Each structure stands twice: as C-alpha cells, then as structure tokens.
C-alpha cells in the first residue's frame, strides 16, 4: 500500500458517517462522502474537509442498488483512485412489531443494511485484492447482539452484518485486508431521532456509562480500524456502547 489510501464512507451526509468522514480526512485519507437523500449535508461535510486542507468530494450512492453501486465506485475511482478503505455505514430503520411489520419495510431494512454492505464490499474488493491491502469496516449496532422489541428487521440485518463480516474476514485476510464490524449503542443521529423519550431514557438506564454515545466516539474506533495500526484486527466484533451489551 502506497501513500494515503482513498476512503469511501456510505451514508456519510450526517451522523456517524459524517463523523467518520471527518476523522478519516484528519488522518490524511481522501474521502468520498457517500449520500443517498441528503446532498446538502454531504456537500457541507466535504467542504469542511477541504477547508481543513483535506481531500473530499460527495458521491451519490444507493447501496441497495447494484447499478448505483457500480456507478458510484467507478466515479470515486476516477476522481480519487481505487478505494482502500470502505466504511459500510448507510443504514435504515423503522421500528414496528414483527406481527404487523410490512414486508416492504423488512426488505428495505435488509437491503440497505445488509445487502448494501455486501454489494459495496464486493465492488471494492478487486482493487483491495490487487494491492494486497484494504480495510472494510461495517457499522452494525448493539441490536446485532441484543434483541430489541420492535426491531426484528433491524436486528436481523445488523446481526447479518456480523456474520458477513466474519466470513469475509476469513476469505480475504490472507491478502492484507481486514474486515471488522462495530456495534454502536445508542447514538443521537437522524436514525434515532424518532425514538420516543421514554425509550431513550430506558437505554440510558441500561447503559453503564449512563449516557448516549456521540458520533465522534463511534468514529474514533472506526478510524482506528481503518488505519495501519489495526492491521492484526480481523473479523472482530467491537461494541461501542458504553457497556450496554456487556
């Protein structure tokens, strides 16, 4: 691996993805800020990186759509170079009890959270294999490890990410590529915006740290995993949840 690799962060227009983009840029990587529905948010973070002497640009990507993924990666490769660090962060959730859950919502959840990570990883791997260096960091959730009423689809998709991570890690570890998954606890982002106050209070109660996490605290771990010093961390499942799942 030559100089600073190129990173592609999906779902980076806000929340954890945004913090990760900033963190990676500060670490010297060129960052493709992936977004699907919030170009302004993505543009804002890209501008911020550039004004801090970093390299970034915004890239539209619908991770659940094969063609969108192909186009997005082709553009990133053309603009910044082959992707050495992929952060599969794009996520979707809609709470609801399984007994009445709509199939379309189930599909959307699985497609965005799990299939999306697969499609992006599959597209990123050839270049990583060729250069015998790569980092895939999947953003799952504490819900991958512990059940949550109302989150069967979300938990399934995130637990699926854990299985995907472990198997992929075994496939490509030999080529200097690490594949790891982080499991954030409750973090205040747009994804958790709609959570009722009582539920949020219950999370805080269950969390030894006694508070919610920040996107920066998630990013710190993800940026570490994306770096050279995490070269022997592979197939790892790392909760970043203030002790919630301890």
């Amino acid at each position: 691996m030559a100089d600073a690799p190129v990173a592609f962060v999906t779902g980076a227009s806000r929340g954890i993805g945004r913090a990760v983009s900033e963190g990676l840029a500060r670490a010297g990587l060129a960052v493709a800020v992936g977004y699907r529905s919030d170009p302004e948010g993505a543009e804002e973070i890209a501008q911020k990186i550039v004004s801090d002497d970093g390299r970034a640009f915004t890239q539209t990507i619908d991770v659940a759509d094969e063609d969108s993924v192909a186009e997005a990666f082709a553009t990133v490769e053309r603009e910044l170079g082959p992707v050495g660090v992929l952060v599969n962060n794009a996520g979707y959730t809609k709470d609801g009890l399984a007994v009445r859950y709509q199939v379309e919502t189930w599909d959307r959840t699985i497609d965005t959270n799990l299939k999306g990570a697969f499609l992006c990883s599959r597209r990123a791997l050839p270049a990583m294999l060729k250069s015998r260096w790569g980092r895939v960091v999947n953003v799952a959730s504490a819900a991958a490890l512990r059940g949550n009423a109302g989150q069967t689809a979300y938990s399934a998709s995130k637990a699926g990410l854990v299985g995907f991570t472990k198997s992929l890690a075994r496939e490509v570890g030999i080529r200097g590529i690490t594949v790891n998954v982080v499991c954030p606890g409750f973090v205040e982002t747009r994804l958790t915006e709609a959570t009722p106050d009582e539920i949020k209070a219950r999370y805080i109660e269950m969390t030894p740290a006694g508070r919610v996490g920040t996107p920066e605290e998630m990013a710190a771990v993800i940026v570490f995993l994306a770096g050279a010093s995490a070269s022997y961390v592979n197939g790892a499942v790392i909760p970043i949840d203030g002790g919630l799942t301890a």
Partner: protein
Amino acid sequence: MEKPELQDKVCSILAEQLAVDRDKVTPEARFSEDLDADSLDLVEAVLALEEEFGVSIPEDEMENVKTVGQAVDLVASKVGASA
C-alpha cells in the same frame, strides 16, 4: 485475436497470478492439483483476465473450469476468438 495468441496471453497472466513457472501452465494443467491454486487465487486470476481482455466472466461459468485449457476456452468464447 487468433486463438494461439490468446492462449499464450491467458497462460502468461495465469502464470503471473498464480506465481508459477510459465512452462507449468499447460492446457492440461489442473488449477488445484497441479498449480496449487485455491479459490481466492482463482478469483484473482479471473479478475485479471477480465481486466486484460475487457470481458465479463460470470461466477457460475467458472464452476466447471478446472484446467488451464478450460479457462482459455472460456476466455476465448467471451472474446469471440477464431480457432
């Protein structure tokens, strides 16, 4: 492209990808038993061939490719090479 030329090019790429001597890459050579190639080696070899020849080789068509000769035939069919 004529087939002999294509075969030579494919074999050179395979030799490089699988890190074996060029003269070991004969049409009869079996990837697993003779060239010590595992599934990842093969995937990388296919990626290299796809890139070099500008073709797409679907994964399911790779299932029956066990020898170098079969790989050459498969690439040739994608490229439309004359025999």
